């Protein structure tokens, strides 16, 4: 007998599951963006005026973008630990208060006009990474992924807030993760994750061999 004596059929159950478990948009830092816990952390690397301006801009964005809840309990039930009150003006001229996760930091990209990092951390331009190229310089199509395609054009700063599992979000997408329970980023290093760097150069993608 050469035949398998058994073939385990875990498979029947597995078949029902889909591969990509996460339909949440779970990326993306733009290459070259840096996450700062506060203005002081930013000012170690950049022009302090730029840091102030970025912080103010992020605060304003945060007010617009962060998830909002009518009560603190609802905010916490949604997974956020540091919920603060905020007020916005309504169109009728009144104001309304609500709860939202506190801004824990902000991300700043490269400045328009090619201004890079202020702190001597100038990273190689993107072309360097792409020049690894396809084996044999062959016709691998469109290698440039979605990630960071517009890096040079980014000047905006982006607000960052966290949940109780330590995920840090901007605009509803997770960009980094810290120790759960972290309440302040301060000037501690934060690991950032960029995604989407694989899967763009499939040639006439239909599988293997």
């Amino acid at each position, binding site marked *: 007998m050469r035949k398998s004596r058994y073939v*385990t059929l875990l498979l029947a159950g597995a078949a029902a599951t889909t591969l990509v*478990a996460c339909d949440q948009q*779970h*990326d993306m830092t733009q290459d070259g963006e*840096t996450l700062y816990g506060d203005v002081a952390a930013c000012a170690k690397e950049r022009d302090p005026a730029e840091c102030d301006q970025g912080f103010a801009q992020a605060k304003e964005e945060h007010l617009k973008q962060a998830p909002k809840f009518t009560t603190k309990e609802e905010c916490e039930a949604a997974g956020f630990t540091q919920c603060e009150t905020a007020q916005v003006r309504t169109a009728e001229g009144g104001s309304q208060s609500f709860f939202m996760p506190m801004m824990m930091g902000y991300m700043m990209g490269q400045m328009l006009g090619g201004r890079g990092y202020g702190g001597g951390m100038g990273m190689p331009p993107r072309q360097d990474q792409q020049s690894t190229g396809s084996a044999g310089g062959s016709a691998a199509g469109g290698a440039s992924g979605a990630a960071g395609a517009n890096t040079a054009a980014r000047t905006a700063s982006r607000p960052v807030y966290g949940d109780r599992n330590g995920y840090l979000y901007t605009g509803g997408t997770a960009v980094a993760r810290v120790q759960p329970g972290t309440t302040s980023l301060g000037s501690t290093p934060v690991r950032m994750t960029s995604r989407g760097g694989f899967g763009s150069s499939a*040639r006439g993608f239909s*599988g*293997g061999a």
Partner: protein
Amino acid sequence: MQRISLAPRPDWIAKVEALGFDWHSVPETEQPSYWDESAYWKLTADEVDRLEAATEELHAMCIEAAGQAVERGLLPHFGFSETAIALIEESWRRRDADQLSIYGRFDFAYTGADAPPKMLEYNADTPTGLYEAAVVQWAWLEERFPESDQFNSLHEGLVQAWTKLRDKNKGVLHLTCLTPHAEDEGTLRYMLDTALEAGWTAKIVGASDIGWSTLDGAATNIADGYFVDLEDSKIETLFKIVPWDWLLSDEFGARLVHAVKTGELTVIEPAWKMIIANKAILALLWEMYPDHPNLLPAFMDRSAFAPGSTVVAKPLLGREGANISIAELGADGPLAGAPIASMDGAYGDEGYVYQALSPMASAVDDAGKTHHAVIGSWVIDGIGRGIGIREDTGLITHNRSRFVPHLFE
């Protein structure tokens, strides 16, 4: 080798789907379009012995040839970039220490009986059709011919191979492929199952969901980073159903090279498998083992063939029959007339190897159609573990050639 027609099981679709085989057909084409149980191939025990012996001998020869390719500095002729070559050489040097290899699949032209199986190529990096061979044709045999045998201990082989690798390598196994893609995702689930059965802790992550985690301010700094899954857990051992050359030309390619060279990341199949997955290996094998009964004449330069020869041009990095053409050579190499057969595709810029055309098993069915069969012979951890047969009415087997089950007596 004999092709025998029989009526498919009336409820075969429900049965194979119950196994998780959800890529059994190509919609809106002539049916059967992929899984085809309207026939099966019947082999003799002697034929299976021949295939098994050829598989294991050729695998050993390919490893020898890979070593020569590195030692003699031949890799630039394989169409690899400098980055790829550096990675491959490093991977080859460390192959015994920390390089994990599970599988590969030879394709044979074999007409049966005493004729030696002829190696067409070795899909050593991202072979497909594993699940069909290991599970679907096994279940078919169990139901239809439970007393017959099949050259197929793939499942046991995979579990054994994963067990061996788990002993070498503690930690979590990540598995990845490009999505959405029913076939690759299904095969990946099967690899996940066999790894779990072998005791691994294992987790699937889509290729485009893989993240590069870096310290604050170093998003473009390769040296400080590592790969992570969607939960931001570090990826240390990665099984991939994505060809190496695609990964290397991706945006994360340089990061991948760095992570593998520093040992931060172990990839299955290892990078050195790129050498024997490359069609240039065919010319090197013929040079090293001229007139070996399981090899076909193969040269990088088609003028090495006698005028009038019928040769098959294969792109070095090609897959699934893409850009392969078959033509008769006139004097001094140029083609005499139009190709006899050819396939479109996105390959070929990297160069071609030329291989003599070999007769394949073929049979005419009741409707008068001729079917050509290629035998995919699996190597799991160095051992010949079974076959899967692909059929086509054309001469070039491609990604949608039908999978037809087999048995032997």
